[in-house]
């Protein structure tokens, strides 16, 4: 670390090699295309190299780098336009049948690998309507089971801000999904409905 701070390029190359998986993991929360993830990760390491002098060693280096990665990715996402609201007409056949299949079951079992890709595609498009900060908070807390404190450390936000963002994101996503299901004409198999129909 000290050698890298003194401008030793080979020492920095070792840092890149060691911490690439972590930076890729953060960037993958924001982007799913390999080219974008690599572009973001490269940007993160270039920033880290120029800011190495400011790392005082108080926290972990990985935590410091994670924060740079998160902020860099957030800036990249902010600079791209947010997508308009996702509607039922945007659903692919695979996504539509995945929703049918999942609506029929009541559990929270994870889909198969094949279906995971479809679910991730659907998530991407639904999350696209949220501000990038809200997306990040939701993916970390609900997707990775990260604690509020861990998200606060990774992003530099206060814990209350993380809570608010996660709540708002969860609510918006649920409402978007509800609207999607409504438009799709899904009949919720409510016993109340069954009673009414009987």
């Amino acid at each position, binding site marked *: 670390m000290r050698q890298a701070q003194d401008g030793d*390029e080979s020492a*920095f*190359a070792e840092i*890149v*090699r060691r911490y*690439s*998986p972590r930076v*890729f*993991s953060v*960037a*993958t*929360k924001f982007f*799913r295309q*390999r080219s974008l*993830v*690599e572009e973001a*990760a*490269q940007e993160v*390491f*270039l920033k880290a*190299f120029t800011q190495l002098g400011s790392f005082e060693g108080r926290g972990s280096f990985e935590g410091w780098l994670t924060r740079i990665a998160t902020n860099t990715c957030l800036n990249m996402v902010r600079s791209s336009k947010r997508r308009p609201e996702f509607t039922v007409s945007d659903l692919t056949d695979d996504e539509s049948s995945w*929703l049918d299949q*999942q*609506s029929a079951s*009541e559990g*929270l079992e*994870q*889909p198969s690998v094949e*279906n*995971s890709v479809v*679910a*991730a595609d*659907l*998530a*991407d498009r*639904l*999350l696209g309507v949220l501000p990038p900060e809200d997306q990040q908070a*939701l*993916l*970390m*807390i*609900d*997707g*990775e*089971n990260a604690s509020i404190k861990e998200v606060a450390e990774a992003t530099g936000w206060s814990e209350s801000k993380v809570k608010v963002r996660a*709540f708002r994101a*969860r*609510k918006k*996503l*649920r*409402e978007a*999904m*509800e609207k999607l*299901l*409504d438009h799709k004409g899904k009949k*919720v198999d*409510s*016993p*109340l*409905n069954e009673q009414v129909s009987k």
Partner: protein
Amino acid sequence: MNEKHITELLDNASIATLSEFELKEVRIHVKSCVSCHKAYEAARLSALVVTSRAQTTIEPAPFFHTRVMAALREQQAVDSVPAMFRLWKSARALVSSMAVTTAALAVLSFVLPGPAVADDQTLSAYSVESVIMDQGSDELSYEQVLSAIYAEEDEAN
């Protein structure tokens, strides 16, 4: 729970993190509340897609660090150019004028023919004459002043 809608509970935390007790209560409530049933279904599907999305992984390519180091060197090279450019911008006028002067002196010294050499006599006469002319053009010498005064007194006598 039966009288209270569950949407706030669904939005406060991931459905996957609800305790067994909470889930049981939710399920009881949604059986009798259509709007909450729809909200619960949407929350359940949302939780599934978010988890699937979070599990997406992309591993770094084997030579990713080489690419980063190449980009770093490229950036350092680009950063050094503006500094040189700024230096050139501020010194450009001085350097240009010095170059022009040097070129002009070189032309005068080596290309243009020098003046024809005159003989020593003419040269020294000319020099003496020019010196006297220069001295006398602006002010009178002490002797000239004295002679002028005495000449006036002689005329008066």
